[in-house]
């Protein structure tokens, strides 16, 4: 197992390197990444002093004249957390990220916990009560949840609960303290929107996985020797089903939550990473765009690593050759 984990970590580094190289190539070939001279020209045209513009260019991530120079600068810059200068905020990109992540975390974290607990619970219940009314209702909910466009759902909730009923605020306000009732109140809608899609897709997986074990021989045996229904469900159905479920947690759910969070932050004006990224795209602040795109990528890579290691610990039959 140690050899496997070592191999897995080595692969993570390799994958990160390939991902970053692809990112660099995408960036370098695009019309947006202006090479040195063009960048300086652009800034001068916008009324900046030529020397100042050259200085600003030196602070860009991945600056240089030849492609190789740009590539090495890009990689070294990323590795040393020197991610460039955000012209929109007039701050290093790393500082902008450091200031805004908490706003994303404060609602993504509760939404994740909520969706994991509810999603698994409903999925398990659905599987053990297959083809009952509750199961059909849950399936209908799941389909609705995965089909609801996040952004439209958010707008509809704002329309009903903020505009028409006036119970909740329309926009997020940064005036209140992070740990206050007011803040919790203005996070209700974002958490609901974000967790609906996640609950729906998790319960579908949970139901499908659990169904594999509902009719298994060992479950019958467990019942025959007189275990209570709850014990059977939790110890003999949920436990083996949990192993593959961990896989989707990182791959699908993280992606879902991040993508959902992006749109939600734009709609509710929560100043987290998503809104920063959105504004950076509008303002064409490339270093900041790059950083806000790479953070979910890094989290996904690390998440995949942790998930695979958990997987081997939970189910020792798996080795690196299996995919």
């Amino acid at each position, binding site marked *: 197992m140690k050899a496997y984990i070592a191999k897995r970590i080595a692969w993570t580094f390799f994958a990160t390197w390939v991902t970053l190289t692809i990112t660099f190539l995408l960036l370098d070939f695009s019309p947006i990444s202006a090479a040195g001279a063009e960048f300086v020209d652009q800034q001068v045209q916008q009324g900046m002093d030529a020397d100042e513009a050259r200085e600003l260019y030196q602070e860009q991530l991945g600056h240089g004249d030849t492609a190789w120079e740009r590539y090495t600068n890009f990689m070294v810059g990323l590795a040393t957390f020197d991610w460039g200068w955000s012209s929109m905020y007039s701050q290093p990109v790393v500082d902008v990220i450091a200031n805004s992540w908490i706003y994303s975390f404060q609602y993504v974290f509760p939404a994740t916990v909520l969706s994991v607990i509810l999603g698994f619970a409903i999925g398990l219940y659905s599987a053990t009560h297959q083809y009952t009314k509750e199961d059909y209702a849950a399936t209908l909910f799941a389909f609705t949840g995965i089909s609801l466009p996040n952004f*439209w759902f958010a*707008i509809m909730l704002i329309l009903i609960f903020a505009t028409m009923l006036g119970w909740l605020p329309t926009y997020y306000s940064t005036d209140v303290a992070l740990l206050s009732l007011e803040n919790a109140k203005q996070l209700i809608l974002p958490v609901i929107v974000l967790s609906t899609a996640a609950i729906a897709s998790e319960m579908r997986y949970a139901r499908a996985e659990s169904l594999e074990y509902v009719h298994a021989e060992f479950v019958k045996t467990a019942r025959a020797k007189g275990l209570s229904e709850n014990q059977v469900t939790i110890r003999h159905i949920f436990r083996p089903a949990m192993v593959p479920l961990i896989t989707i947690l990182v791959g699908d759910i993280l992606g879902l939550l991040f993508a959902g969070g992006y749109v939600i932050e734009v709609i509710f004006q929560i100043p987290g990473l998503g809104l920063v990224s959105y504004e950076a795209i509008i303002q064409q602040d490339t270093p900041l765009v790059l950083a806000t795109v790479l953070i979910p990528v890094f989290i996904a890579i690390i998440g995949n690593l942790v998930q695979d290691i958990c997987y081997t610990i939970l189910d020792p039959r798996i080795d690196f050759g299996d995919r």
Partner: protein
Amino acid sequence: MSTETHTDGTRDGHDEITFEDVDWEEFDGGLEWTRTRVAAYLTMGGIALAWLLDSLYGSRRDPLVDYQFGPVEFAPNPGNVEWLFTLTLAVLFFYCLVPLYQNPRRTKHYWKEFKKNKAAVASLVFLVFIFLVAVFGPFIVGRPELDLANAYQPPVFYSYVPGLEGGTWEHPFGTMQSGEDILQTVVIGARVSMMVGLIGCLMIVVLASAVGTTAAYFGGLVDEVLMRFVDIMLTFPTFFLILFVVYLYGGDLFTIILILGLTTWTATSRLVRSEALQRNEEQYIDAAKNVGASERWIITRHLVPNVSNTIITAATLAIPSLILYEAVLAFLGFGDPNVWSWGRVISEGRGDLQNAWWIATIPGVFLFLTVLAFNFLGDALRDALDPRHE
């Protein structure tokens, strides 16, 4: 599939050919020229040629033809997306509808399985309706136009204050802040969503089956390189990959569709590979190898058709996410500014929730129902086409 061939006019029938007579070299290289295949190639080649000619010599402003049938005006001036959409429709016709028509027994069997799922049948009806609206609607209801005199007309049966004059049938879904009719934007939006969904789906089918079956058939280093690449692509959260590439290269709808297709095929290709690996062990593959069939022949004639159920199901289930990705991009304002996508209309209505709820609500209902219908359909297809799946 019919066995008619017209490779050689002088040979009458094929009852005189014995196994020894077959020139495997020749048979291997060429394809069976059935009537449908010729028709398919001619149609698709014609569309591709017309596309090429139009983009080379066609003027951007003038429509190809201009007919007026009463209120209906037919004056197509296709851009790249429209050409690609036509090509997709031709592929859909020749590789989906024609085979279904030619194999009535199998079609009946699939239909019997499919019919059990009432939600899926309703979804299919709804999607056929949306599809027809998407293809013919814009020519019937016209395109949305700026009309400041008619801003903020409410939909029919609704008025701002009870008793006051409400919406009229002239604008059944109401109008937007600059007077565009919402019915017209919904119809154009349906077209955009169908284009994104179907073209993207076709791209996924082509890329995923090419990569998946190649990896499974050759195995070894080819498999390793292709699948490791897919692994890495899959780690990259799709939404951010799309966002990043659209930021760097985006702009018009054509580019966005290409980007969507090129970034979403990986999950399907992995599925196709694992399915093809199982098929690869079957005896008919060995039999084909033993009679000396080439690798290309085995992949295109034996592997791809036998994993086609997996491919179709996975691609159908990819359509809703493609449509949602496009809608989100349009909503955020990174879409094509010249195209009335559903996402764009919703984003325009976002600022008017107080006084004009219908702008954001109505296109969203259609978006939601379309995505829901595709999800139901994909799920039912999986049940009907894949006998091993419960």
